[in-house]
């Protein structure tokens, strides 16, 4: 059983990413959308925290949000559009949006 965690808040303004990373199951995945995309900003602590887990955590980003913010995507992040988002929500057993 695995959960897709969806984050939309900036990690610099907010503790949701930190809390989420603490409780991830080993098959869980992360989808970054909205301002959570800033977690991929280069040379930052959130990016480092995600990179440290790159081998064992699937990280997705909503492509329109990365594009709008001109965020460069590391090779270990997969970009998805809305059909891709729907597909992810089916692939994982449940979706946990951090409202």
């Amino acid at each position, binding site marked *: 059983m695995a959960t897709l965690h969806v984050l939309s808040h900036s990690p610099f303004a907010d503790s949701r990413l930190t809390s989420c990373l603490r409780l991830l199951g080993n098959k869980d995945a992360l989808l970054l959308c*909205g*301002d959570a995309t800033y977690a991929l900003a280069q040379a930052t602590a959130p990016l480092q925290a995600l990179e440290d887990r790159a081998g064992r955590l699937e990280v997705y980003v909503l492509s329109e949000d990365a594009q709008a913010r001109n965020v460069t995507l590391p090779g270990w992040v997969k970009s998805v559009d809305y*059909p891709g*988002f*729907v597909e992810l*929500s089916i692939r994982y057993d*449940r*979706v946990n*949006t951090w*409202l």
Partner: protein
Amino acid sequence: MKFAIAVFSAAHAPSSRRALLFAQAVLAGGHEIVRLFFYQDGVHSASGNIVAPQDEQDIAAQWQDFIGAHQLDGVVCIAAALRRGVLNEEEAQRYQKPAANLSNSWELSGLGQLHDAAQSADRLICFGGQ
């Protein structure tokens, strides 16, 4: 697959637009939406009183159109709506308020409808916050 989609943010929030685009992709992918349930500030996404600037997306109007076009079940939590001033005719009269502003694609009901949707759906997806 059957989806229940819950929206917790107002129409001007990026998450409301994201929910709408997700919902459109769900149907385009051949899946079913058992219900759209609007809770917390999501009740504002069902307001018919929003005047979006000409050069901006009118997400509330787009929700209205989307629900109407696909004859979806659009439910707004009545308790959340009342305390935020989103009322239909019946509630406006009951509480003697000057205006009813719930868009006519929506129905006011209780949290039981959220639970009912979650029971029928394979996936419950929430949108809100930012």
